[in-house]
């Protein structure tokens, strides 16, 4: 459908099953035994995709995503002649879930990619000026492609961890200027400078009745009333995206500081992973 956004039912759950799931969650019990503000087990493998200029494979419970960075050359935007560019793309190939048909990114994939993009862009993690080659003419382009391999909920946080970690592991090929042309010498490389202090991550909450949870599974997403993603960098909120449902002022007042708190421990996990790059490609 040509750019019309349409109400969809995420998954047809029998009404009874749906109600019982919601009741259990509202009692503070999650089917995998987690507490309300616990993340699932996280595994991050950085740098294992040899053909990419930077990469990360992220497991968030059974959700699995892979992000690869490719460095290219481009022309800067007229209003930022001395800055490179970041392009985040997210694809949900049909391997990821039985409900996905092959096709270009739909509104959900586009929305996630754009929220991850904004989170990274506004964090100060990347110094876009360091990506300038010849002002007004040639700049580095960072293409971040995130592929969902297995979808078990909370694609936002998994995709953002993967994109951020892939960028942190990226090396820039040297730009060789020849006459008016620029080419990349892919055998000579320097690390992309990133500000790890301002590591950009998203924290996603789901609301079921009056209960608020973090890191929802697909099952939890399918029964929740509302969902919100908060992009955090250091102690700043750099992005918010409410998707389904409605929130009270109190909900917002509760989730925003909680996001900053959860960010700190999530950041630790990512930074640890960045320090031990992975040679073997493990899915």
């Amino acid at each position: 459908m040509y750019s019309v956004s349409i109400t969809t039912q995420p998954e047809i759950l029998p009404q009874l099953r749906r109600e019982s799931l919601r009741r259990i969650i509202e009692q503070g019990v999650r089917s995998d035994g987690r507490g309300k503000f616990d993340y699932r087990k996280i595994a991050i493998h950085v740098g294992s995709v040899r053909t990419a200029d930077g990469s990360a494979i992220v497991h968030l419970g059974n959700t699995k995503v892979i992000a690869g960075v490719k460095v290219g050359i481009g022309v800067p935007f007229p209003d930022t002649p001395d800055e490179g560019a970041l392009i985040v793309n997210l694809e949900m190939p049909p391997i990821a879930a039985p409900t996905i048909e092959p096709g270009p990114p739909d509104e959900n994939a586009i929305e996630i990619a754009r929220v991850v993009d904004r989170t990274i862009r506004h964090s100060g993690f990347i110094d876009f000026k360091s990506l300038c080659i010849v002002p007004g003419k040639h700049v580095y382009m960072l293409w971040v492609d995130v592929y969902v391999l297995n979808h078990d909920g909370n694609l936002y946080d998994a995709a953002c961890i993967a994109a951020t970690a892939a960028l942190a592991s990226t090396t820039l090929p040297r730009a060789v200027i020849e006459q008016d042309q620029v080419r990349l010498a892919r055998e000579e490389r320097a690390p992309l400078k990133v500000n790890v202090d301002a590591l950009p991550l998203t924290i996603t909450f789901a609301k079921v009745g009056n209960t608020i949870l973090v890191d929802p599974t697909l099952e939890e997403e399918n029964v929740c009333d509302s969902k919100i993603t908060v992009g955090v960098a250091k102690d700043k909120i750099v992005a918010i995206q409410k998707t389904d449902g409605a929130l009270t002022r109190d909900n917002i007042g509760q989730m925003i500081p909680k996001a900053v708190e959860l960010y700190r421990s999530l950041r630790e996990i990512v930074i640890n992973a960045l320090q031990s790059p992975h040679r073997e490609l493990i899915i």
Partner: protein
Amino acid sequence: MSSQPTLIDLSKITSPAELRRIMHDLAREGKRIDGRAPDQMRPIRMEVGILSNADGSALVTYGDTVAIAAVYGPREVHPRHLALPDRAILRVRYHMTPFSTPDERKRPEPTRREIEISKVIRQALEPVVLLEQFPRTTIDVFIEILQADGSTRVASITAASLALADAGIPMKDLVLGVSVGKIGDLIIVDLNRYEDAYGDGDMPIAIMYNKGLVTLLQADGQWSPEEIMRGVELAYKAAESIYRAARDVIKSKYVEAAKTTQ
């Protein structure tokens, strides 16, 4: 009626950097480039019933931002397999005309930005429309931006609410859109295009007026948690004046209608 900046002469500004600097200097004194107070909306204009073919329609302007919305439905869904057995679906399209932006022509094909905004507007409206009353049908909300001067998605939401009301679609509440922004430490409402482009943060919000619920919330830029909450408060306050204007327009339409049917 014009929202052209009044405090400074934009034609004398030579670079974006200069404009940004001036905007921040003004903000330190609690001022904005168009002379508004931080919590002041631009002039709002609202009309309903502007398009005879649509079941409901509305025009909403926030300053120089002009959005029109048309509602068709409840009506049959094509293709049928998109219909839901227990309620209506909502189909929403937000689109900018090629001549709605300053500078270059915008291509008419939907951009990734328009696709995302169509989705968040749909999700801002779904909580209020009584979809369960019309199973297996669709209610279509089509929005065209004729002029863009910041805050287009939130003006669109207000226009959509009015068009839904004009179409007689039963709703739990009116949803009103307002943008909040940040220049330096100054939190402001109803961003114009310069405040959107050169400010430090943008937070579009949609509020169900009577229930006080938030049905659209996005943000970018850099905000402290406390600033976010201050911004939300400002949005609730701004929603008051938008609500009053919207209510008056709907009421006078019904009075009008009552008169003609007498």
